[in-house]
């Protein structure tokens, strides 16, 4: 059902637009006074001046390392699967690939690429990650001179991501296994 809203006819004074102009200029003057005479500018002097990024802000997703400086990602490719704009591309190690640098983890990605031009900063990758290896961090201003430059590779992502500690579940498993008596395998 369409609802027709009656528009009030403008009065003679209103039709001159002068009252509206005056009220607009009042706002302009107020801010002009504040900026020029009181030294309280309404805008920020970006990029010299940066705003404080609030907690929980969803910036660019980066890979993180554990407290020992090892790659946390195990190349399960769930983020690649869940990524709505298909910004993530992971190259799994394959049978002959690189062995994971993290204690007791069997796998890590050969290559991990995020196309930051495609990324929509939705945070699904962070949410789906079973290893807490990818986090949306505070970077909001990503620039590059070419499309290729905006595809961040594993090395770059790990460098930007920094360290995120937490439970080292694979290392914990190894310690647990070592604590148990040596596994008795029948030698034939």
């Amino acid at each position, binding site marked *: 059902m369409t609802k027709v809203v009656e528009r009030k006819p403008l009065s003679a004074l209103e039709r001159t637009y002068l009252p509206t102009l005056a009220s607009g200029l009042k706002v302009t003057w107020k801010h002009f006074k504040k900026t020029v005479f009181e030294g309280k500018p309404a805008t920020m002097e970006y990029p010299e001046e940066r705003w404080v990024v609030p907690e929980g802000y969803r910036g660019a997703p980066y890979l993180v390392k554990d407290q020992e400086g090892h790659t946390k990602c195990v190349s399960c490719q*769930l983020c690649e699967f869940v990524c709505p704009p298909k910004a993530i591309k992971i190259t799994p190690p394959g049978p002959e690939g690189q062995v994971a640098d993290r204690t007791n983890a*069997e796998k890590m990605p050969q290559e991990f690429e995020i196309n930051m031009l495609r990324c929509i900063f939705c945070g699904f990758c962070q949410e789906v990650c*079973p290893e807490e290896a990818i986090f949306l961090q505070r970077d909001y201003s990503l620039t590059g001179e070419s499309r290729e430059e905006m595809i961040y590779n594993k090395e770059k992502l790990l460098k930007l991501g920094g360290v995120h500690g937490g439970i080292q579940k694979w290392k914990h498993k190894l310690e*647990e296994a070592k604590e148990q008596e040596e*596994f008795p395998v029948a030698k034939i």
Partner: protein
Amino acid sequence: MSNAPATTAAPPPVEKIRIKVDGRDVEVPKLLPNWQGKLEPTTMLQAVQIAGGEVPHYCYHPKLPVAGNCRMCLIEFGTPMMGPDRKPVLNPDGTPKIARSVLPYEPQTPRGAIACATPISPGMELYPSSPATKQMREAVLESLLINHPLDCPICDQAGECKLQEYSVEHGQANSRFVEPKVHKPKAVDLGPRIVLDDERCILCTRCIRFTRDIAGDDALGIVNRGSYNTIAAWKDGAFDNNYTLNTVDICPVGALTSKDFRFKMRVWFLKETKSVCSSCATGCNITIGSREGTIYRYEPRDNEAVNGPWMCDAGRLNYRWVARADRIHDVYVRGVKSTWETANREIHALLGRAPEGSVAIVAGARQTTEELYLLKKLATRLGALTDSIAREGEPDRLLVSADRNPNSNGARLTGIAFTEMGIQLPKIAEGIAAGTIKTLIVFGEDVTKHGLGADLLARLETLIVSDILPNATTAAAHFLLPGCAHAEKRGTFVNTKGRVQKFMKAVEPPGDARAEWEVLHEWVHQVTGQNGFSTIEGLFNQMAREVPAFAGLEWSKLGDTGVTITI
């Protein structure tokens, strides 16, 4: 599953039993074929499946002997109550009274039975979705997960893992287990193609039964006791028969994984294409797993009439050549890179004015039946000698055929080759030597290895070669045409028993490569003036109408598992 051709003898009347599944009346056969095809009393699991239900199971496999050790298929059931006079006790409304199976010392507690190994009896009632059944499943799953490492992010089975699926469907959300888990060896080298992760194993013994009873190589067993039970090969790395990778398929968890597929791709990314293995004349049905134009694996596809649920390792791993870097990508005319238009124009003109008998055709029995049919059409018009080349190997008692061509029977039925393959080759060689054969068309074979040496090829006026990988014949070709692997086109193969099976296209061909049948269709059109069908469906149907052996067949009637014809 049952696509076996109907036997001519009238089947004996099937004795039926009436039971109830979740309160619904169902009539099921009293006897059903077991894993070997022998009739045995119908089990609860089969009865529930016939009733349209599903009983979760790990150790049960329709093609393996029943072990009944995982306990996942436990269901609650009841049997008609019998009075002391051995007559059924009736309810007041006249229906038979059902005694639910309970623990003898604890009549409030239902006593389940493993559905995979318990036969049904008349009047039995099964409760596959009762609260008690659900509780039993929860409990079994919980105990199976006690020592499971939960390393799904790393595990190759994730995505096609029964443990994952049943945990979601029937399991509990939380673990109540606080004690440290028993740790077992990981990444154990079981054989040349198999890696074993003992922590993930649920000891269903499917792999043991497969290798003992199907492959006939008693290589696996369980060692150690209690919580330390582990699967082991009789000697380290000794699990090396030609069927080991089937254990990866039947392993319901990620304990047995393929070394070839290890950490290559997550299974949920793979596009599955129904195809047929081209490594021998058995024609095992396969599913090609590919992603973004790359083939990652072949898996057997169930076809009772051909391979059942199995396939050999050699055939399964024979996919890498499709992505080889040295494949022929472009059309070459006398060594110069050219286009299909130029090459086809010249070939059309050349074949159009070729005198009768001046052309010979050698077509590999790795080409599809449709392609061979089109080549035969061409040969008839040109009065050409045609032949194919036999490829022999060592057969085995299970699946591998001595004939290593996937389509020898296709070549024979279309008339390209005779019963004995290669019988015409000496004649072709003579013809070339005598100068009567001036043009040779070769499809997918290296004829230099089969009596038509480089010296003979040099005598030819025109050598037209379509192939996938470079060889001595392609090097001598005047017209070199890039062909397609069977995974890159559609078509049919006729296997050693005369089963016509179609396969679908999984990946795009590289570079300028085109499906041979498309090219041949143009040649036939230009040379013989008969316009055929430009779709594979139409082409197959046309072939079925013209070649007597395929009479009555239609592309759409082939289905996923093919049709057997008399050869």
